[in-house]
């Protein structure tokens, strides 16, 4: 149990998590990192489905509370970390699995067979980061319009969409602004 009063003292890793990390290190050649009381387990894409199944079935991590990614552009190898945040409601534990993937045609296997809620989040991942999810049952776009080009949450995606209109460039922008014809 954590100390009462919500103390923020640095505490060593939970025993149960330590065991999990040990097993994953041996069986899936995973590495881990501890940061601010959170455990991040780095794992190879090929081992991902097995690791998630193991955590779900053996250690009661029944909730996939987040599935997202981080872009470390301009770093290319690995450029993305695909992040799977798991929560165990019965044990009050949280663990993060990270899958590093390269910038050239990034790819991860689908985990929607393990956690059904991953379905939509993987679609969002494909939309926003352009990380391909192999074997996804329904790989349509989820958020962006059908004809969208590019992946907005990538670091190299342009930040602004339009130059702001001020007095000095008002007319120039006014001329090329796509006003509705009517």
């Amino acid at each position, binding site marked *: 149990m954590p100390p009462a009063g919500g103390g923020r003292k640095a505490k060593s890793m939970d025993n149960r998590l330590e065991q999990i990390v040990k097993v994953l290190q041996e069986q899936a050649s995973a590495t881990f990192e501890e940061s601010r009381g959170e455990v991040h387990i780095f794992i190879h894409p090929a081992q991902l489905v097995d690791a998630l199944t193991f955590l779900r079935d053996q250690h009661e991590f029944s909730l996939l509370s987040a599935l997202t990614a981080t872009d470390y552009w301009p770093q290319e190898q690995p450029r993305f970390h695909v992040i799977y945040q798991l929560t165990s409601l019965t044990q009050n534990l949280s663990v993060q699995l990270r899958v590093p993937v390269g910038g050239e045609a990034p790819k991860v296997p689908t985990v929607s067979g393990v956690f059904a809620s991953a379905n939509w989040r993987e679609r969002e991942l494909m939309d926003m980061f352009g990380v391909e999810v192999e074997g996804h049952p329904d790989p349509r776009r989820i*958020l*962006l*319009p059908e004809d969208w080009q590019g992946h*907005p949450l990538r670091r190299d*995606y*342009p*930040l*602004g*969409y*339009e130059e*702001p*209109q001020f007095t000095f460039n008002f007319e120039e922008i006014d001329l090329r*602004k*796509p*006003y*509705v014809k*009517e």
Partner: protein
Amino acid sequence: MGVEQKLGNMGIVTTTLESAVNWARTNAMWPMMFGLACCAIEMMAAQAADFDMSRFGMELMRPSPRQSDLMIVAGRVSRKMAPVLRRLYDQMPEPKWVISMGDCASCGGVFNNYAVVQGVDEVVPVDVYVAGCPPRPEALIHGVVTLFEKVKGEKFNELAKA
């Protein structure tokens, strides 16, 4: 002095058709009940007792585009909302007007990014822009009254050309 004194004993009044029609249009302009973001809160406040837009004949917010004359675009329009907005506009019967309420609807506001339309005038023709983030209800009412002034100046022969 009421209108009956102006009428005298004749019981009739002479005016132009233009001004009579424009008077009718401005005094019962029903806005569409269509809020997109936080500006909609101010739009509701403008409708409520304190500011009371029914003073201007706008007490009815119609939840159907078929029954409304005025579209108040209250909030930022996302790229996926834009086709819906255009469709609602197309469903409104003529004559119809559009007020772009707030900075986001007028020019994108603080949302200069991929997800938000940079000005709703890319989607529907706008008559009056109301600045503010969000505009106070007074500002919206001022925008509405400005629109009334515009409508009162409409000429039939110009409408016929268009």
